[in-house]
């Protein structure tokens, strides 16, 4: 090649290279953006390492109208349940209540009121319709840190023996229930 003018193939390859790179980057971005709208890609998602681990040690008091619970209660479970962190001051929690109320017949849901005043949490549950079989109160939010919770709502699917089998940091949707939660919960039933 020294001194010789570039061959046409070579020139064409060099011309195509930036186009190919730009195209590749474009496809990458397009996939990220479409994943964000479909929900399969969330750049803010925190991949908490809680999966397939036993629930952390905790014991939380009652939150009216429900009964509090502890790690022992979850570890004694024989069939799967959902544990849902919520708060009366959290808008997405209000949004997911109808979905949780529709789910409670198929899968028991235990709630944990996160950094909430007892009377506010009670009012919230009474207004929205109570989907929870039991409700505990995490007033200082320190048990939540042990769970790796970074905000509300956050939901965990607890398998038999109190092992965390699934986790989401976004509000529960009907799609999530049919595509992920129920199939997984059914597979965990004894």
């Amino acid at each position, binding site marked *: 090649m020294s*001194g010789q003018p570039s061959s046409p193939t070579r020139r064409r390859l060099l011309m195509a290279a930036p186009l190919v790179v730009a195209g590749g980057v474009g496809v990458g971005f397009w996939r990220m953006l479409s994943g964000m709208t479909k929900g399969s890609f969330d750049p803010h998602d925190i991949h908490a390492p809680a999966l397939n681990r036993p629930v952390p040690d905790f014991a939380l008091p009652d939150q009216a109208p429900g009964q509090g619970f502890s790690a022992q209660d979850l570890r004694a479970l024989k069939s799967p349940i959902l544990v849902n962190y919520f708060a009366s001051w959290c808008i997405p929690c209000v949004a997911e209540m109808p979905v949780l109320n529709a789910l409670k017949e198929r899968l028991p849901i235990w709630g944990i009121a996160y950094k909430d005043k007892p009377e506010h949490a009670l009012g919230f549950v009474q207004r929205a319709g109570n989907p929870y079989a039991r409700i505990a109160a995490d007033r200082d939010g320190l048990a939540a*840190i042990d*769970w790796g919770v970074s905000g509300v709502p956050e939901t965990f699917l607890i398998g038999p023996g109190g092992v965390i089998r699934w986790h989401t940091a976004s509000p529960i949707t009907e799609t999530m229930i049919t595509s992920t939660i129920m199939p997984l919960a059914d597979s965990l039933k004894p």
Partner: protein
Amino acid sequence: MKTHSLRHGGVIALLVCLLSAPLVAMAVDDPSEMLPDPAQEQRAEAIGSQLRCLVCQNESIEDSSADLARDLRHVVREHVARGESNRQIMDWMVNRYGNFIRLRPPLTVGTLLLWIMPLLALCIGIGVAWWTFRRPRTVTPTPLTDEERRRLSDLTETR
């Protein structure tokens, strides 16, 4: 006079805005949060500045005024007061929130590219530079073919 006082009003409003900005930033430094031992407090701050606030994700928990950041600061101080090492506290956090909570990602297979990118970019740069400068600058033109020579003489003659 009217315009004068209006102008003053504007200046005062601006001053109020500018002076209250540092107050907002300092809201995080609630003295009641701090450990009594300055050395321990300094350690807690150093650890906290390496931990990501999971609510406002590009701030450290020491910088953020989010509720969760305050709780995490409190937890860090509890652990420091208990005499745990920086590594123990970091591991405790990573155990709960994953490596995402570390503002400085650890060197793993997944972050290898991130860490070696500067070196890689330098190597690519040196490679390109070497490849470019190695080539002779003067390019000897290929002699004209008979066809081209004929065409050239045609063109010059018509002139």
